[in-house]
């Protein structure tokens, strides 16, 4: 009986291992594009260069903000955070991707008072859409601060060719960098950026642009150079519970 079973078992086992090896080698716990890869971490979504050599930016509920009246707090913090997970495990995500060619990630964060859904959708043309949705929440924020933590050696410039520095962290090297790139340095005494900005471009120390953030007219921008955190504060309409942000990779 065993002799009869062994060949079939060998075929079945080899086929299953083939599937396992294929899926494991071509990791889709991220979704990937030609110039970036997304990695889902326990507490953040990180976006790397396509060779995974460098993290370009990350998104996390620990960096995002909600505004309730005059109160500003993170979407999740150590006390309220329970867990984060993808909607389903990696294999299901892969199967869904195989069947529907679905270029997006859904990631959920559970806190004491909310369930926050992050959705990353590849829009094509190097752009992604980041949706932050308060799926189940007893909070009614008026604004959501969509935060992006950029790479340590990156700089922030805008469509008017200005480069932004915090006065607390200004250095000669940064001034020299601004001069070499023919940018106009703007020294910030607080974190709020000027209002007439339609685009932010994040560049690295070699002047290579990494990402572009389109800014809507009614959005406020805050930049905390200490944490390399850019917060784009968006009004949350009463009937809506989500905000959408577009990011372009360069």
């Amino acid at each position, binding site marked *: 009986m065993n002799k*009869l079973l062994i*060949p*079939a078992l*060998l*075929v*079945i086992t*080899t*086929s*299953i*291992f*083939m*599937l396992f*090896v*294929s*899926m494991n*080698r*071509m990791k889709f716990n991220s979704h*990937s*594009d*030609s110039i970036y890869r997304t990695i889902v971490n326990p507490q953040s979504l990180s976006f790397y260069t*396509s060779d995974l050599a460098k993290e370009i930016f990350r998104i996390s509920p620990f960096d995002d903000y909600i505004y309730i009246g005059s109160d500003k707090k993170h979407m999740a913090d150590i006390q309220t955070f329970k867990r984060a997970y993808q909607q389903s495990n990696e294999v299901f995500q892969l199967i869904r991707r*195989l069947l529907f*060619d679905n270029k997006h990630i859904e990631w959920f964060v559970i806190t004491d008072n909310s369930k926050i859904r992050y959705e990353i959708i590849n829009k*094509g*043309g*190097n752009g992604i859409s980041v949706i932050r949705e308060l799926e189940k929440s007893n909070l009614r924020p008026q604004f959501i601060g969509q935060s992006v933590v950029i790479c340590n050696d990156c700089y922030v410039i805008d*469509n008017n*060719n200005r480069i932004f520095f915090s006065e607390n962290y200004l250095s000669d090297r940064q001034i020299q960098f601004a001069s070499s790139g023919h940018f106009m340095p703007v020294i910030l005494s607080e974190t709020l950026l000027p209002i007439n900005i339609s*685009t932010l*471009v994040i*560049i690295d120390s070699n*002047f*290579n*642009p990494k990402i*572009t953030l389109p800014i809507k007219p009614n959005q406020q921008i805050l930049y905390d150079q200490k944490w390399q955190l850019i917060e784009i504060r968006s009004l949350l309409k009463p009937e809506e519970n989500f905000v959408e942000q577009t990011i*372009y990779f*360069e």
Partner: protein
Amino acid sequence: MLTDLLSSVAFYIIPILLGLLFTRKLFFAWVSGSLLVYLVAFIAYGFTKLLFTELSFTSLLRGVFIFVLGLEIILIIFKYRSFSFPDQLINLSTIKKHLPLLFLLIFSSIIYFSIWRSLTPYPLHINWDVYEHITVVNKITDGYYSILPSRMTDTFTFNSYSTLFHTLLAYPVILLKADVVGMYWWLEFWHYLLTILATYLLTRKIFSQEELALLAGLISALVFESSIVYSSLFLLPQTFTALLTLFFFINILNGEPINSFRVNFKDILSKYKYHFLSFILLLLLHFIVGALACILAVIWWVFSNKIISSKATNHLLLGSIIFIIITIIFNLVGSWDLTNREEAVHFNLSLMKKSSLFISWYSISFIFFFYVLYISIRKNVTLYQKLLIISIIGLSLVLAPFAYFLKFFVIIRYLINIIIALGVRNLSIGYVGYIRSSLYCLVAIAFFVNFYLNQLTFKEQFYFKGFYSHFSFAEVEASEWLKRNFNNNTILISDPGTQYILEALSGINSPGGAYMSEENRLKLRSINTTQDPKEIKDIILRLKDGLDVEKPVEKKLFIVGGRYFAWQKLPEDQQKSFYYNVWRPHRLLVVDQASLNFLTNNFKVLYQNDELTILDI
């Protein structure tokens, strides 16, 4: 699109029609017809250069060809008038007999269009080497001709093949006035189907088992060598040579076995004249892969004629295993680039890297290969051993520590696929039909998933505006405009990638295409460091084409766009290298807009779309 489709069919049919005058065996007809096509092209070129200098080469070629083809068709009808063609076609039992093959080809076509070509519609391409071949075809249709591609365009800095492949491509373009880019899109589909057909037919010929042939064909459809090899999904001289080698093997098996070694040279020539012609064809299609093909064909012929005893086969198998072990150990000694070409170092892969590639292409299905090796030794199955000997010797070459040797896998992959199918079948043969089918389905699913992920990983680097492609529709539009407004007295200047693609799409020359010389690359790079329009103009005017075959240049066009600015941002060592290119279109960035504005303010804009701008220098 329809003309391109018909032209792609004509690529295969024309040589067959010519060759049918000499032999009824389809493959040998194709071989002799192709060589005849090549000969006619050379004679026509000679005539236009020496005797009828007012006649254009392509007009003469078209005229001669239509005349010869017409004559051939009349002679063929006359010769084969007793051939009862219709009866054989509508015979129900014949159709039923080929139903599995029909199913395989339909299934493969669905895979091809729904997965491989899903976001690469007509006429987009993701085969980077295609453009240099299209450039040579454009040169032929412009009236230039030579036996070597490097004598026709400086896009080629090295000759691995003659212009036979390009001549065969040029014929349908000349006759039917097709667009070569569009024709090539269809040709790659037919090539894919033919690789599956060849695997199926060869397997059925060797083993006389329909089920096994089907399985081998299926595996062949679902294996994509996504680096250097590209056997089934890319039509290139080497992949085409490999495909023809397989049909050659089939024809060798179809031949009469030799009865005696007492034959004279005249008899050998008579019996094997088409085999010798096949050798010539394979060598002309690719000097190196063709040489390997010829050697393997000789070995194949020796094995098929049962010249070697069973005991000798055992020893040969052992010898081949020792040979591959030695090759693997040899990797520890060192590795050799073999040429001075800068790109050679990137094609000199370590054993680990090659192994990693095999796992990407096959996952761990090599287990079935080892199973066949095991049973061939244990049960002393001579037929399996012969197949394994050729495969293992071929694999030894593939794994050898020399640059470019991985390319030899382009032929060996067919035998590997057959052996893997053989392993699956041998393990499944003891079970009833529905269990066996289930096992085959499971294997097929495993191969399918691996294929899907592998091709997706390969294609993703070319993603741009919803498509996987080296070029965008905006670049196609720009090429159409160039084709309409300029001739071959014009030269295009841009980054190597843009030059390479636009030269192929428009037929307008560039200095070296993707193989722009280092000197020109450094000149182009230096544009970045100056804000003086006169200096920029001077730099561009000093960029020269490497070949004298072109007519004197009347106009130089400077093309800038997202891809150009992306190239300008590369580190210098990558800019100088042939191995690095900007493989896909890029959006024009905010930071590039200032540079573009500077150029458009200082030079005349001839054409502009949202991706690139063409300036008059």
